[in-house]
């Protein structure tokens, strides 16, 4: 019998932070994760985490303004205020837990400057910030003897009388499905980058939580807002952190010009990511690229700085491309990186399904709106991981009984068995590649009605073909073939909601830049797009953006 008060799906930064909060409150808590917690994709974050430390004279309101401007005014401002206000306290807590943040001459926390901001308020650990945070939070859960269902894969949420009462999950070591009952469930399943090809995301970022929530009746919001990172490595899309530009690296075109001077004279390379990515794409499209890329130039930073502060980047550059950053510029291009959209929640992680919460990249609070600032996502995971746990803890005390469900497990077991037993179908990888290529083409840095409808038609076609895919591996033990197939199903569901969002938003805002409608339209589209499943079909609706202190202005960098 598996029963908990608070069950957290995902053990990346958002999941671990939520777990610590719930354990500290004395609740029967468990995490469930398809990979060991430290393998979670949070570990890949390199650059840093933002916080305005007010005791040193920084102003959280300035951080909030940068975030809101960065979001192209699509963020809900009350949520941004909460995030920026709580940032300092959360950061210090992380330091106290053991994160080895870089220091200044006085031995206090040191900073670097990140894109879209005027002040240096990004705290970091070399070029391994995410990993250093992830390992420390994991250490804390070890200290507190947290329960982790490690290498268990969630296939379904249990919804009873409209409330979330647990999950069905597969123990990957035995292949057996089990029901894990819980009074509340927090989804912290991370991003969905693998819907696109290439992407900076890990192979495990397949949007599972988004699809689980969507299929259970939750709304997915602003799914068309896809962030393309300006400095993905050409080829397989491995990320070179914004930290490089934060330390002063240049972007050059084939003529050797710092082209950002033309697009963002004030912020240059450190303008918002959507702006920099579009500028790069424009240069490349105008024939001033180098084999479809632009160049990231770190040479003037000097070897010492590169090695101390950008060590991991140097490792990637040398290992994967044979390039020494101190000697040579490296080719980069806009690469799918992050989803601003996600499961619609309030500022405490509540979804529209009682008992179901979401935090981290899979959630949309919304603090990133149309475009996320670098180093704001780690902050989002920590602040809202903690807040969602607090809300869940409160809710748990109102729940009297656990799930009595008997049929769901049986149905789910049958569904998976029939999938495994299918023979002679298409391979999952074939469909996934078709999806990845069409989504990058259709919902790219630039998009228009035609490209969007091309991508949507493709996804609709793939959704039809998906039930006829078959897998080779019929075994039970660590069947990664089966997991991939299930993940593909999730990705197709999520991809469709992205296409619908892109189709419906008839303007350009943030990362959603339509060449057929190039202007931002505050009159009609200062709104969130939402997609929700009803009777098996997606339905679309809009909802209002919360504006508190900052009226929408023209966005210039």
């Amino acid at each position, binding site marked *: 019998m598996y029963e908990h008060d608070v069950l957290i799906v995902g053990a990346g930064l958002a999941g671990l932070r939520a777990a610590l909060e719930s354990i500290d409150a004395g609740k029967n808590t468990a995490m469930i994760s398809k990979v060991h917690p430290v393998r979670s994709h949070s570990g*890949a974050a390199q650059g840093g985490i933002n916080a305005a430390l007010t005791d040193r004279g920084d102003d959280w309101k300035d951080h909030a303004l940068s975030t809101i401007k960065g979001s192209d005014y699509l963020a809900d401002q009350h949520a941004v205020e909460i995030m920026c206000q709580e940032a300092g306290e959360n950061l210090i807590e992380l*330091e106290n837990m053991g994160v080895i943040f870089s220091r200044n001459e006085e*031995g206090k926390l040191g900073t670097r400057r990140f894109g879209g901001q005027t002040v240096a308020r990004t705290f970091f650990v070399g070029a391994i910030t995410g990993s250093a945070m992830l390992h420390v939070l994991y250490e804390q859960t070890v200290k507190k003897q947290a329960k982790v269902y490690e290498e268990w894969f969630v296939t379904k949420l249990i919804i009873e009388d409209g409330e979330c009462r647990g999950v069905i999950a597969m123990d990957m070591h035995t292949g057996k499905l089990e029901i894990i009952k819980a009074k509340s469930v927090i989804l912290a399943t991370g991003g969905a980058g693998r819907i696109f090809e290439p992407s900076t995301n890990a192979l495990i970022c397949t949007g599972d939580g988004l699809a689980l929530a969507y299929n259970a009746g939750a709304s997915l919001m602003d799914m068309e807002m896809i962030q393309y990172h300006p400095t993905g490595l050409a080829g397989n899309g491995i990320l070179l952190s914004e930290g490089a530009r934060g330390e002063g690296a240049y972007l050059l075109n084939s003529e050797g010009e710092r082209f950002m001077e033309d697009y963002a004279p004030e912020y240059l390379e450190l303008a918002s990511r959507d702006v920099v990515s579009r500028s790069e794409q424009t240069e490349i499209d105008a024939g001033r690229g180098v084999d479809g890329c632009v160049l990231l130039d770190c040479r003037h930073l000097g070897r010492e700085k590169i090695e101390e502060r950008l060590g991991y980047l140097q490792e990637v550059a040398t290992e994967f491309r044979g390039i020494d950053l101190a000697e040579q510029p490296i080719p980069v291009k806009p690469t799918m990186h992050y989803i601003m959209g996600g499961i619609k929640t309030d500022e405490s992680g509540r979804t529209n399904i009682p008992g179901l919460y979401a935090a981290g990249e899979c959630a949309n609070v919304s603090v990133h709106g149309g475009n996320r600032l670098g180093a704001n996502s780690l902050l989002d995971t920590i602040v809202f991981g903690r807040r969602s746990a607090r809300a869940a803890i409160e809710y748990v005390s109102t729940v009297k009984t656990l799930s009595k469900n008997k049929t769901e497990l049986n149905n789910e077991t049958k569904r998976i068995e029939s999938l495994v037993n299918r023979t002679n179908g298409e391979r999952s990888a074939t469909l996934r590649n078709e999806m990845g290529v069409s989504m990058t083409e259709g919902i790219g840095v630039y998009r228009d009605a035609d490209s969007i409808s091309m991508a949507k038609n493709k996804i609709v076609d793939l959704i039809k073909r998906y039930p006829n895919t078959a897998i080779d591996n019929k075994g039970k033990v660590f069947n990664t073939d089966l997991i991939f197939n299930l993940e593909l199903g999730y990705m197709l569901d999520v991809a469709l909601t992205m296409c619908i969002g892109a189709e419906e938003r008839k303007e350009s805002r943030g990362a959603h830049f339509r060449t057929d409608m190039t202007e931002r339209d505050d009159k009609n589209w200062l709104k969130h797009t939402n997609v929700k499943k009803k009777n098996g079909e997606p339905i679309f609706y809009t909802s209002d953006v919360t504006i508190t202190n900052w009226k929408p202005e023209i966005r210039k960098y």
Partner: protein
Amino acid sequence: MVQTAKKTVQITIKRQDPEIDGNKPYFQDYNVEVEDWFTVLDVLIKIREEIDGTLSLRCACRASICGSCAMRVNGQAKLVCKTKLSSVEKDNKILVEPVGNMPVITDLTADFKPFWDKFNAVDPYLRPGSEAPEAEYIAPNEDMVHLVGVMNCIMCGCCVSDCTVLEVKDNFLGPAALAKSYRFIADPRDNTENERLEKLLDDGGIWDCTRCMQCVEVCPKDVDPMSRIMAMRSNSLNKNMNKSYGARHANAFTSLIKSSGVLNETLLILKTKGFFNIIELIKLLPLAISAQLAGKRPPFLSHSIKNKDKLKKIFKKLENK
């Protein structure tokens, strides 16, 4: 940008499945068309996606940061996502096996339970002394930068896979857990340095390492576990924690090897690679003991990996006797 010089490579994979033939390992060959920029992981993924979906392996980040993909390539532990195919194939052939010193679940997927048990055993979390300060702890940047070197560890298990002591001695905490321990011992914010060190003097702790350098050589993140272990030894001696544990331990280890069968079995398993290290290991024991008895420090300075050739010669000599 990406060149497309294709060729065909033969990948031999050590496989096993608890549901088939009593989990008996076997070797399977795949001929795969590859591009010249492929990593070993790219090839394995290609096999799984296009040729044979039954192949089970872990991978996530593709960028040497998640620590999922440690395997043995041509007998040596590597992160396969960080290993260019061209750097390891010989005559268009490579051999891929699961990591060593851990049980196998199936195919290339190893059971990391023993690895994490040892991680847990070193109290892997900061233990500051007093109440947390109002704001951050004040600490010199040099110390933090130094610790980044150890925090670079992604718990991939390459070092554990190829550690020569772990091949013969199960209860050795091993390079990864010990490096983790060092991470707290060297942290100015941790207040339990002595307690941690004391614990590591026990059987299975810092005195078990034979300085074979395997962990240094295979670590994909330059964590250098051996130097961390040596630093802790030095640290413990400076604190007069030399109650001859080291010597006692070295003795225990000698007798372990001498005891019937163990050495022979080991030698069989180790084949060529580990072999030299065992010789080296035995060679070091008297040194460690005499140094201990004389109240001196054992030789901390690491010998260079280049000495391998010299060791080979010593081994030849021994063999010819």
